[in-house]
């Protein structure tokens, strides 16, 4: 009955069928569209960076730019620099970090080590989420309502730092929390087994283990708050003079300088605005790089 051809023939027609053309077309279309969206996202980034560099890079090459302020220069005179604004930006960012970082780390420690699933921990997590969505202008208004109207403080760089604290805390809490969670439990248990108190375990074992990541997170957060404009607009006045005192008087910062000089509609104003933009981007880049550098240097040696 069975011939050789019968034996070679598959029992059933092959299960694999060519993908029909409409499915293939849809697949290809989707791939192209998805790839295009990525290009679409990079276009503004590249365009923006090229614009800023083309318009402002020539001004920051001058040594005066980094060492002098704009004091005594009219809006028609070229020259001077943005030293006063750089100082302001760094000072406000650092004061903010000094206040925000300890609070944020303690909150993260609470969430990971103490709170667990308690009701307070849930409330804190929710609040941190909400806080990270609070617009910077609202944070600025709050500090205005609290410090300036209610407590009668003058407008000052310190008030700006306080508003920035509100914006920085959620960022640092998030990163720190994630990092503390991945510290292996064995480390904690080993410490407890040696009779080390819990707080010392956290301070000496858990946090140092996560430290390099935390530092990266902090420097990213500083970089972020230094670019914030709304708080400086509301909470401190602009000046072309150098001011080192965060508690008194007007203090420039790069965003504030840009919003103020923007109103100078001539070449001088343009030079100052775009030069400051390049400077701000450079400082933010430095902080980002610094973060990853420090984290590389301080990361625990693994053998």
């Amino acid at each position, binding site marked *: 009955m069975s011939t050789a051809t019968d034996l070679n023939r598959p029992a059933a027609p092959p299960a694999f069928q060519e993908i029909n053309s409409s499915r293939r077309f849809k697949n290809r279309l989707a791939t192209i569209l998805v790839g295009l969206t990525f290009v679409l996202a990079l276009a503004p980034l590249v365009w923006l960076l090229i614009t800023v560099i083309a318009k402002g890079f020539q001004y920051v090459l001058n040594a005066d730019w980094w060492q002098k302020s704009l004091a005594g220069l009219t809006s028609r005179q070229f020259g001077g620099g943005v030293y006063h604004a750089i100082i302001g930006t760094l000072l406000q960012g650092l004061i903010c970090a000094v206040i925000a970082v300890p609070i944020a780390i303690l909150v993260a420690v609470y969430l990971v080590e103490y709170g667990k699933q308690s009701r307070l921990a849930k409330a804190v997590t929710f609040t941190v989420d909400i806080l990270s969505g609070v617009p910077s202008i609202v944070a600025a208004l709050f500090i205005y309502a609290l410090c300036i109207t209610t407590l009668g403080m003058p407008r000052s760089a310190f008030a700006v730092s306080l508003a920035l604290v509100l914006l920085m805390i959620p960022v640092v809490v998030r990163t720190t929390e994630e990092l503390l969670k991945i510290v292996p439990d064995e480390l904690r248990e080993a410490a407890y087994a040696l009779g080390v108190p819990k707080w010392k375990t956290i301070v000496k074992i858990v946090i140092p283990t996560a430290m390099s990541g935390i530092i990266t997170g902090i420097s990213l957060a500083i970089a972020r708050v230094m670019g914030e*404009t709304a708080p400086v607009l509301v909470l401190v006045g602009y000046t072309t003079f150098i001011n080192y005192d965060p508690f008194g008087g007007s203090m420039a910062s790069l965003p504030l300088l*840009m919003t103020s000089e923007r109103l100078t509609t001539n070449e001088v104003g343009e030079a100052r605005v775009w030069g400051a933009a390049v400077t701000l981007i450079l400082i933010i880049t430095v902080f980002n790089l610094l973060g990853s550098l420090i984290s590389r240097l301080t990361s625990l040696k693994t053998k």
Partner: protein
Amino acid sequence: MSDSDTVGRPGAPGLARGARGGAAPDTAPEAPISTPQGSGGTPAQPPKVITRPGDKIFKALTVGSGVFVVAMIALIGVFLLIQAIPSLADNQANFLFGRDWDADPEGGLAFGVLDLLLVTVFSSVFALIIAMPVSLGIALFLTQYAPRRLARPFAYLVDLLAAVPSIIYGLWGAYVLAPALAPVSTWLNENLGFIPLFATGTSNLAIGQTIFTAGIVLAVMLLPIITAISREVFDRTPPMQVEGALALGATKWEVVRTTVLPFGRAGYISASMLGLGRALGETIAVLIILSSTTSHFGFSLFDGGDTIASKIARAAQEFNDPRGAGAYIAAGLVLFVLTFVVNAFARSIIAGHKEYE
């Protein structure tokens, strides 16, 4: 007693629950071997948990910080409200439904937030409509399509968009993008002007200080935010589902459509809501791009105007009279409530999904 103390010593608070739980004191008589401290003949005591002063102080510090953060949100609402009430009481216009803003205390306050609110929501929703499909595409590209080795650097590039300060977006939008968009907006206005959305607005199209420009810049700022969260969620699609779809002969797109998208939908929507919250509160970019106007908002993309945030920032340097400032603080309170609701909603979408943890 001192004996049982030394035994209990390693039982620091964190460990007391699990490791020492085996030495349950109630069953001590039946199981003398497993409870060494019971061998002295005295009934076994539960291992003493020793709390050192350092522990107490440290815990109090962390709890205090947690409470501080919770209190902070409440304080923001309370302080804004307290400062806004006197001005609201003096207000001669309807605050929520009035469309004109006069916060000059000379001659009486008459401020209504409706127009600002409309511009805020309108521009943010416009931005979201542009940003949502694009970031969905980027997130899919980074998680499903890009070569594994390039996915990380590509993702880093998208994240860079988030690192650019908003003031620089504003400058770029106002001085570079706006003129470049002029032909597009003119074309839309001339050919589709019968649709209210593209009707001639209060802003000059050639200069481009329109909601159209502001919305596009906002959309660019939203891309990294929406992408980052969607990417995380898409990455967690169970591999079994993906492989199952592949085994059934699905094409790449069909895999995405039948496994990745249904799994990640809630996360994607939540991410978009978070982006919306961000757009609603964006201040300086909008302030630089939009032209101020005294005429009412006409629901056209080519209108100028002010969002709540940009209105506050525009007036910020002249906050000297507390009653005038109070009017702006009232507007800020509206913005705070709005972003609070949007953010809480975004979180609640994700909170129901345990598989995203």
